[in-house]
């Protein structure tokens, strides 16, 4: 009976695990030190506006996101200054262009963002990993930083054979804790950011 019980449990657990989610764009998971190293600006921001429009060639829709800095954790963007993100995708008239994995922004929301590039043409580090919603926790009254919105991306682990390790921190964290970690990492003379992927080597040893 014990054996059949074990069998039932095993079958049931197999059934539970059988259904996989629909898949999405693939993005390499980045840990916090890498995120901080790759970011030119890390800040708490308020999303002021999101506007979509055609690119110069009238071929692709681009979204322009205007952010105002509330609290800068890394970089030269002072409180009250504006940062602008430009990224593919958006809706213009009867055309919706979706680039899976791009971060979604909603006017009025507050978030911690990890941005690279010039302040007027910034992009989000690690795609959707680089934006984390800030909200007040109802139970404690403290501000917490939510897990990143993956916005359709599928994150993979950066190193093989690390099946038991979490891809990245998925749980909400107190804002103060994350600020302290980011500021500590920002002042640390960090090693150069690891290459996002492998050095391109062909299976037969040829390099590109």
């Amino acid at each position, binding site marked *: 009976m014990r054996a059949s019980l074990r069998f039932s449990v095993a079958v049931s657990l197999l059934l539970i695990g059988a259904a996989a989610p629909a898949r999405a764009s693939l993005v*390499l998971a980045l840990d916090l030190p890498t995120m901080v190293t790759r970011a030119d600006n890390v800040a708490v921001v308020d999303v002021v506006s999101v506007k979509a429009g055609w690119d110069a060639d009238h071929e692709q829709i681009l979204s322009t996101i205007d952010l105002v800095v509330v609290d800068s954790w890394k970089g030269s963007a002072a409180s009250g200054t504006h940062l602008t993100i430009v990224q593919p995708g958006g809706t213009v008239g009867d055309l919706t262009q979706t680039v899976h994995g791009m971060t979604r922004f909603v006017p009025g929301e507050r978030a911690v963002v990890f941005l690279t590039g010039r302040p007027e043409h910034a992009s989000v580090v690690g795609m959707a990993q680089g934006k984390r919603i800030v909200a007040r926790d109802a139970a404690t009254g403290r501000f917490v930083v939510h897990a990143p919105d993956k916005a359709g991306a599928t994150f993979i682990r950066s190193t093989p054979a690390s099946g038991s390790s979490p891809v990245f921190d998925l749980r909400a964290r107190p804002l103060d804790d994350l600020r302290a970690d980011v500021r500590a990492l920002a002042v640390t003379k960090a090693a150069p950011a690891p290459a996002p992927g492998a050095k391109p080597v062909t299976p037969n040893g040829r390099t590109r």
Partner: protein
Amino acid sequence: MKRGALMAAAAIATLVAARPAAGYVRYTSDGGKMFKWPQSCVVMQVFPEDLVGMMSRSEIMGAIEASAGAWSKGSNSCTYLDIMVSSSDAATPRAVNDGHNNVVFRTETWCKLNAKNDCDPSVAYDAAALALTSVSASTTSGIIRDADIEVNAHHFSWTDLVMHPDLRGAGQSFHDLQNAVTHEMGHVIGLDHTCYLQPPAPLDDMNVPIPSCSSASDAVLATTMFPSANPGDVDKRTLEADDIRAVCEIYAVAADPMTCAPGADDPGGCGGCTTGGTPKTALGGFGLLAAVALAARAKLRRRRR
């Protein structure tokens, strides 16, 4: 003992019942319309030449054909959808909404390209992205007009890990092309994730809020319910039950539109557009079918007059 077995069975049944819904989720436009191709077949043009330094041409085409085939009627008799793959030796096109669905390999640059094939300095692609899928659809109808997959071969190494198992495991960082493109093909046909990270929870196909990814236990994070994979992963080459149900319900064989003419039901679509030119292609079958369909339609119109 019998009572114990019953209690265990009941506990398992409760566990299963309490488990978050695992339905499929479809992308919706800003107008709230679900993404869907209007025709029976979706043609994907592959430009393998850029990747031949990394994989053989047959490996590349084999991977893309298998990825497309996984979602197609050949593998799933309950659907009419047929993702048809052809190769082209023409110059690699850009990923734009031109009515041509392309799979391209970006080896030289990883950025948004402008009309001159230069990187647009105002829009960066993140180096952490292994692949990007862009889907253009009607806001008011949800009808998909164009889909392009860009594979990042500028920062990452691709191979067929089943044919080259020595490239899997510790110390290796090769990615399996078929594994990745099978994911992307799910996007191409209009699918979204089945777990969420920021409320409100989207509804799945059964109108049940999908589970939160962030509150999942460690055990769940380690399962296939959590959308992650290791380098070397080939598990996602094959569809799971929900994936199959998605393609079979969205593109159910009983509702086959019986046409391969793109944009047939989409007045604002690209049914007759010729933007971007026609690359050299092994697409004879589809071209012939479309030509026959158009000729028959013209004949019918003449008769009506």
